[in-house]
């Protein structure tokens, strides 16, 4: 229910945003369509649990930029997106969100550095309550263009995930978990802090290549069919994973929340097809280390077509 309540709130905000932007040309609308492959969707720890899937996704963003003064601006946007995972439909999700970005530019010209403060609030809905989540994200960053083509950005990012209180899960009890001293049921109730650095290079022909690195101290939701003792010891939450419905999977799958440190690398190439359209290729590789010294990995290959409407 919390999802639908939030959907209404965010929808109202997005509608207001849309209407208020009609009278001013500082608004922007972006449509992105893409697809790709994710190598380890359940964040499985071994070959059996590492399940890959191709996906398609689409998102539309409407926003408006307000120039507050000579050096600062505020950009507000609303976003609606969906992802469909062709091989693991239980991971399909719809996301609705709003974002605000305040930018201060230190001086004049294209080489003047800038400071950014962003707040993003997303509501994500999946096929089961255990994976529904609300995400509040705060980000502080600085950026600077060093040469004609080189831009460097660095910052910190705090992400807080919230979820509904979940009912007692009979499957969890059947797996041997003690009802009294049980783990939390709420898989997506955690916080993460990351530092990041990104560098972009604009080629003369308009192509843009970028590399980004995130160091993340936070949590990861992984899934397993084997809830052994070690998992109970290192997990902060444990619940039946709705991404694996019984009608499709013979064995029950459980999600568990792990405290992790992660290194995430992303490489991207953006090729403009026109002044308003680009096609983007990206590779995102994440190495996730849990407190039991186990490593989880995930790689996402994606191609996205972005239209500025």
């Amino acid at each position, binding site marked *: 229910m919390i999802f639908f309540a939030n959907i209404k709130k965010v929808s109202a905000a997005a509608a207001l945003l849309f209407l208020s932007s009609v009278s001013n040309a500082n608004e922007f609308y972006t449509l992105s369509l893409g697809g790709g492959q994710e190598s380890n969707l359940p964040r499985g720890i071994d070959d059996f649990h590492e399940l890959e899937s191709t996906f398609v996704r689409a998102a539309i963003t409407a926003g408006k930029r307000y120039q507050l003064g000579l050096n600062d*601006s505020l950009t507000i946007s609303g976003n609606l997106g969906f992802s469909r995972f062709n091989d693991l439909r239980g991971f399909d999700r719809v996301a609705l969100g709003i974002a605000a970005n305040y930018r201060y530019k230190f001086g004049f010209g*294209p080489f003047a550095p800038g400071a950014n403060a962003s707040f993003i609030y997303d509501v994500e809905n999946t096929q089961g309550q255990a994976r529904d989540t609300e995400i509040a994200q705060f980000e502080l960053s600085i950026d600077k263009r060093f040469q004609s*083509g080189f831009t460097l950005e660095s910052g910190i990012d705090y992400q807080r995930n919230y979820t509904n209180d979940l009912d007692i899960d009979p499957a969890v009890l059947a797996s041997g978990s003690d009802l009294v001293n049980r783990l939390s049921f709420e898989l997506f109730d955690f916080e993460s802090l990351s530092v990041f650095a990104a560098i972009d290079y604009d080629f003369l022909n308009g192509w843009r290549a970028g590399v980004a690195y995130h160091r993340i101290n936070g949590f990861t939701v992984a899934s397993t069919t084997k809830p052994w003792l070690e998992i109970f010891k290192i997990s902060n939450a444990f619940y039946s994973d709705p991404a694996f419905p019984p009608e499709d999977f013979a064995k029950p799958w459980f999600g568990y929340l792990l405290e992790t440190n992660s290194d995430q690398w992303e490489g991207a190439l953006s090729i*403009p097809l026109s002044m*308003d359209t*680009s096609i983007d290729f990206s590779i995102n590789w994440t190495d996730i280390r849990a407190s039991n010294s186990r490593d989880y990995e995930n790689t996402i290959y994606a191609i996205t077509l972005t239209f500025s409407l």
Partner: protein
Amino acid sequence: MKIRSMQSPLHSLYKLGFFSLYSVRLNLIVGLLLSLGWVSGHAQGLTVQLDDSEGNPISGAVVEIILPEEMRSTYQLSDETEVDQLDKEFVPHISTVVSGSDVMFPNSDDILHHVYSFSPISTFNIPLYGKGTQNDYSHRFSETGVVEIGCNIHDWMLAYIYVAQTTLNSISDDSGQATLENVPSGTFELRIWHSRLKEQDIAMTQTIEFVDGEKTVIEYTLELERDRRVRRAPSSNRTRYR
């Protein structure tokens, strides 16, 4: 700058040192063709063809003939022109004005712009203004040289105002041609400027003699650097971590 072709029957004059070179990087052309049509006893024409090393025409280069001071008054007609802001671009991208001219910077977009220049010959700043405002504002460019105009809100917006000594200047078109008519007879300096010329070539000069009734055709190959600012299509956002 490199020689591209030698088309002139007066090629031998070049070999004899008839032309003098003032730029180290200048490896002269040059084609000097007798004009097919006689215009008048004192009206000479000049056509400069500018290409890059791959043979692509270079537009937006300014060609100016530098007259001696005593001859300038006839060609010093200051004017009023405008550099508009349309669809988040300056229009035109390159302008030429004669020193002493006024330039207006109207805003035809429905959004705010913030026009500025750091260029030493003319520093100014028109803080945030929208459509229909600042229509009366004009800035006088008194010194010769190149003024780089930017918008502090939209970093890719860029315009150049070439402040010339006289009206004997022209901007190369899409075919890479810059044409000047009614050039007086005599030996004058020819200056070529492009915003993306390498630093040492930022304004190339060469001395050329204009002979009564002759049309001079010159071809240059220029080496340009990358654009300082590139406007590009939006790209998709980076992925959120999970």
